[in-house]
């Protein structure tokens, strides 16, 4: 099951991972540290709290726009299964299965 190169570590990839880990650690530790020094306004807090959802939508928008009815239908099914079951693996399997089916039909 383990294919060739599974354990490979490219120095540049490792550097990017370390940089990601660094900025993430700053965000995790920084809030509590900053709080004793400055006051985060509710206004700024409201803006920051929409960031993750907005970025996910910003990724999805152009990607789904480039797709067709098969992808849109499958995406709708993923939303439906997530809302009904809140089971990510089930939703992903349903979405991938649906896209194969819809592409075969269309």
């Amino acid at each position, binding site marked *: 099951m*383990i294919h060739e190169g*599974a*354990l490979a*570590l*490219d120095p540049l*990839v*490792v550097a*990017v*991972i*370390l*940089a*990601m*880990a660094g*900025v*993430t*650690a700053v*965000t*995790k530790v*920084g*809030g*509590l540290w*900053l*709080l*004793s020094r400055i006051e*985060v306004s509710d*206004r700024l*807090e*409201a*803006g*920051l*709290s*929409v*960031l*993750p*959802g*907005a*970025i*996910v*939508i*910003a*990724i*999805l*928008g*152009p*990607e789904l*726009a480039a797709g067709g009815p098969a992808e849109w239908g499958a*995406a709708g099914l*993923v939303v439906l299964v*997530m809302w009904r079951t*809140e*089971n*990510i693996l089930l*939703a*992903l399997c349903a*979405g*991938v*299965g649906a*896209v*194969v089916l819809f*592409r075969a039909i269309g």
Partner: protein
Amino acid sequence: MRSESRTGDEAARLSTATSREAGPSDETDGERAAGPDRAPVPFDRRGVRAGFLTCVPIALGVGGYGIAFGVLATQAGLSVAEAAMMSALVLAGASQIVAVELWADPIPIAAIVATTFAINLRYSLMGAALQPWFRHLSAGRRYGSLLLMADENWALTMRDFKAGNRRGAFLLGSGIAIWIFWVGATIVGALFGGTVGDPAAYGFDFILAAVFVALAAELWEGRSTLVPWLVALGTAVLAADLLPGRWYILLGGLVAASVEVIRYDP
């Protein structure tokens, strides 16, 4: 706090999974009587254990995203070891999935690091919310625990603290559970992703879009989310046409956050 309403729902949904764990909280009744601010916040093995056991059912769900991340990471060209390393050191699901979405040759380092930072900025707010309890802990325990913070175990920890428990090590214990399942699932997904031939033949090219649709379904907070999301959508579609690379992702997020700051109505 907006992010709390989301994670509040999350916590409510998880409450059935954790209600059987109500026993140990009784022993803190005496401390609670001493007042919320003056009572000590013990940091001990019992807190680690309670956090870990409470979080295991939730960590199983985190594993679902971990498998998806592992598959996507290998499809983006990362080795199993690199994918596992990213999960072990970064430990922030959505930002890792976005990073492998951005992955290309040559690696767009600035875009990846800046987007990771933007997505994870919410952790600053979440960490700050722990202040009433964490200020009783030493700096090492406080910041060490925060490194293992993820959305799920933060929500569980806030719920535990607000219920009157003062188990300082709860975030650490629940974070250990998240870490084990996240890294383990990444390895499983990465091993599996490496064995797939042509991704499109099995609809695997759709996994990434499906993961983001699922993330969006979880991040939806009701009508308050509608305006920022429409702004993000419009900005991203427009910017994807006009700008090179993947900068439209970060731009869409930042414009939506700015609009939210401007239209904020206390």
